[in-house]
Each structure stands twice: as structure tokens, then as C-alpha cells.
């Protein structure tokens, strides 16, 4: 598995931009590489979830232990109802049916060995805040401790917006949960020495995506003095972004 830096260097070399005063620098290419990885990961996950093949993407699931907050009166959005919540420890992919959160379970580290592991017990079911009304209307579906639910919402707090997960049906004594997420790789740090977080067979597609994006970046800005086309000489080619086939691997979204 090559590192992110190796991919960036390879692209820079292919574009002839590996000299010191090149128009495209290594950091810019690293950033585009990161965008490409995100897109490919997202489309891989979405595709597999679409056909119910969760085993193929289980290596893209990250687990976290999160603290649960009960009855937070300082919450700016929901101060007038007994909210139980936790904030997502990282951003997650935006997937159909809210599948960015793969699973939530009670944290049960002290279970005897003959019991199933925490992930084998009591699944949390996803809903929405507005959907709670219909769920509470069904005796077999309304939340309780053995049938807990969660709903995501953006909470606007004094410290900024939070990607919050509200919990329903859980007991007051619950302080921690274990969650499994399809987490988006951290955007704030780009380590050139980090291995590319993709299956090897996708490197070709990633390289192609970076090359095309970088090549297009080198063509703009194209100075257009008039917007009616008269600024071009006869026969002058208008440079546009390269068209790719809908059958290109980079376009196989679902």
C-alpha cells in the first residue's frame, strides 16, 4: 500500500509539476487525493449497503465509546424536554437510511463470558425526531430499555453546532455506549506518510481522479473578456473539464 505522499508525487510527476516552483504543489495534490479517497469510500459503502453486503465493508467501520448526557438543561435547542444524547465523536458519511451510524449498543464490559458480546445484544434502532410520534403509537415499536432508539439532529449550542444523537428508551443509569460508525477520515491533518485508506484495487481509479482534477485546475482561470463567445479567436478551443463516461469507475456511485 503506497502512502498518500507517494500518490501525490506520482501525480505531480505525471503532470510535470514536480519542480520547485510548480503551479500545483504537493499539499494541494494531497488535499485532492483526500477528496478522492472520500468519494471512493463513500461510493463503495453505499454500493455494498445497497445490496445488503455489509461484510464487504466491515473494515470501514470504526468503533468508539461515547459518554451519554442525561437531561441537559443547558442545551440551547432542546432545553425544555428531557433529552438524553451524545455527540458523534467524528463526522460520518451521509448514507441512505442514516447508515453512517452502523450500530449503537450498550457498553457492557462486565458481562460474564457466557453472555454474548455487547454488539450481539440490544440493538438501537434509528428514527428521526419527527418520526417518534408514529413509533410511540405502536406497542411493539415504542422505545423502552430493551428496544432503544436514536435520532440524529444538528444541535446549535453555545460552542457551535454539534452533530448530536438523541436517545430514547434508555435507562438513567446508562453512562456510556459503544458505537460503530462509517467515519470520514480526518480532514484537519494530512499526513503524507500515512498509507492510502483504500483497497489496493481502487488506487488506479484514485490516481485517475486526482490527475483529472489537477489537470483541470491547471487550466483555470481561463481569461474570458466577454461572455458571448466573441473573445475567442476563430477555431480557438474552449477548454472545458474533461468529460468522463458514466461507466467510469469513478462514476459508479450506486
Amino acid at each position: 500500500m503506497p502512502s498518500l505522499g507517494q500518490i501525490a508525487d506520482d501525480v505531480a510527476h505525471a503532470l510535470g509539476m514536480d519542480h520547485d516552483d510548480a503551479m500545483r504543489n504537493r499539499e494541494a495534490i494531497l488535499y485532492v487525493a483526500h477528496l478522492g479517497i472520500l468519494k471512493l469510500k463513500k461510493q463503495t459503502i453505499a454500493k455494498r449497503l445497497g445490496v445488503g453486503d455489509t461484510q464487504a465493508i466491515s473494515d470501514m467501520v470504526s468503533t468508539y465509546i461515547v459518554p451519554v448526557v442525561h437531561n441537559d438543561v443547558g442545551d440551547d435547542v432542546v432545553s425544555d424536554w428531557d433529552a438524553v444524547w451524545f455527540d458523534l465523536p467524528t463526522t460520518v458519511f451521509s448514507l441512505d437510511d442514516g447508515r453512517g451510524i452502523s450500530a449503537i449498543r450498550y457498553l457492557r464490559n462486565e458481562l460474564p463470558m457466557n453472555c454474548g458480546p455487547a454488539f450481539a445484544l440490544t440493538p438501537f434502532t434509528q428514527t428521526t425526531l419527527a418520526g417518534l410520534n408514529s413509533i410511540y403509537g405502536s406497542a411493539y415499536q415504542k422505545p423502552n430499555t430493551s428496544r432503544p432508539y436514536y435520532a440524529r439532529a444538528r444541535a446549535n449550542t453555545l460552542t457551535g453546532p454539534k452533530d448530536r444523537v438523541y436517545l430514547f428508551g434508555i435507562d438513567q443509569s446508562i453512562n456510556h455506549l459503544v458505537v460503530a460508525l462509517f467515519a470520514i477520515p480526518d480532514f484537519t491533518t494530512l499526513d503524507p506518510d500515512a498509507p492510502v485508506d483504500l483497497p489496493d484495487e481502487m488506487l488506479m481509479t484514485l490516481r485517475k481522479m486526482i490527475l483529472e482534477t489537477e489537470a483541470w485546475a491547471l487550466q483555470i482561470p481561463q481569461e474570458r473578456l466577454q461572455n458571448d463567445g466573441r473573445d475567442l479567436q476563430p477555431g480557438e478551443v474552449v477548454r472545458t473539464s474533461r468529460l468522463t463516461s458514466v461507466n467510469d469507475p469513478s462514476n459508479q456511485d450506486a
Partner: protein
Amino acid sequence: MPAGAAKYPLSEIITAAAQELRDEEFGELGRPFYVSAAQHALGAINKRTDFFKKEHVASIPQNRILELPGDLTAKDDVYLFNGDNCNITSAPTLWISPNKLHFGGTGSVAHNYGNPNPFTTWIFPVNFAPANCLYYAGERSGKLYLSPSCLTFSNVLFLYTGIGVECFGDDFDVPEWCREAITDWVIHRAATAMRRKDVIAEKNIELKTPSGSWATAIWDYKRMDKKERYDNSVYNTRFGRYY
């Protein structure tokens, strides 16, 4: 009919259903959806078979208006008795008189006397009054309206069919004979929610054709088991004979 004591926990049913739909994580609909669908299915097959047998004892109030059990879907038998236990040898049957209604006082309404005014309060002439040994009741909106003769007894025993589950809202077991039918129903319901037309078509065959799992389960429930067949054989060949 083989009531059968074998049962499977609900998780057997919904796990099989979710796996067939490739929704093992219950990520698309959630586990409660599958549980709810299974309860619907059990209620529906109970309606076709009356398999969920229950008993209920109630005291007869002085106004002779008696609440039926809240989970009653069909009555098998109703007996009147005194004391703590229903002694069948001396417990008369309570007959149901259609449309009979009273309000706790004397007389009753019954739309079966040909009078154009259905709310006429009838006081029986002596010669036409029902015999005192005849116990009957009208049924209306979940209540029984007992005849005055029923006050001879203190209790009513209901043998009836419930809704398929003991406690509505809790997990339940599924009888062995309808396991496949319930699983197919759950898959069909989930596939409908997921708009999986291919699965819906497959399960329509199971649920709606004479050889499908639904009809087969009802057939299985209603056929005699081996002992019943032996008993019948003995009854038919030896009844009334000395040897």
C-alpha cells in the same frame, strides 16, 4: 387438531426473515418493525385457526352487564357456575341471544319479535317467559347483557380465543406449525416497506396460493394428529361393540 406445544422464540423468526432480505443488521427498518410484523402475522393466522386458547373467569355483577375479556376475538364456550371452581357437571351453558340488550333494570330489548319499534321494552307474559333454567345473554360492544335467570350463579367461565399473544407489546413465541408462514409474512411486510418487488412477488406465492406456506400452516393446524386418527379409528370400528 394438533395444538402442539412446540414453540420458537421470536428471534428465530425475525433473524431468518432479516437474513433472507439481507438486512441482518436491521439497518433499514429496525428490529421493532420485524417484531411488529410478526405479531400482525400471528394475529392473522390466529383469526384463521383460533389456535390461541384462553380461559377467563368473571363475577356476575348485580346489573347483569358483564365486560368480555379485552383480548377476546372469538368465544368457544361460556359456562355459569357458583363457588371457586367451575364444576362442569353442574355448570349450565350460557346461550347467546342475538341483539338482546338491557340497561340493568327489568325487561330487555331484542330485535327479534317482529315489532317495528326495535326499542320496545318487552315484559314477557307468563306463558311466554323463558324458563328459569334457560340462561342467555345478548352481546354488544364488548359486553354481555345477561338474563335475570343468570343471577342464580355468581361466576362466568369463558373459553375463548385470544389475539395470538399473551401480553400485547411484549416479545412472544411462535408455534412450530406456523413458523414458515409467519416468516414469509414478515418478509413480505418488510419487502413491501423496502419496495422490493422481486421479494414481494415471491412471497405473494407463499401467502396467497393453495400450496404456499400460509395455506399449508392452516392445513397443518386443522388436520388431526396421529393420536386423534387412532382414536377415531377405534371409535369408528369398535363403538357399540362388546369385544
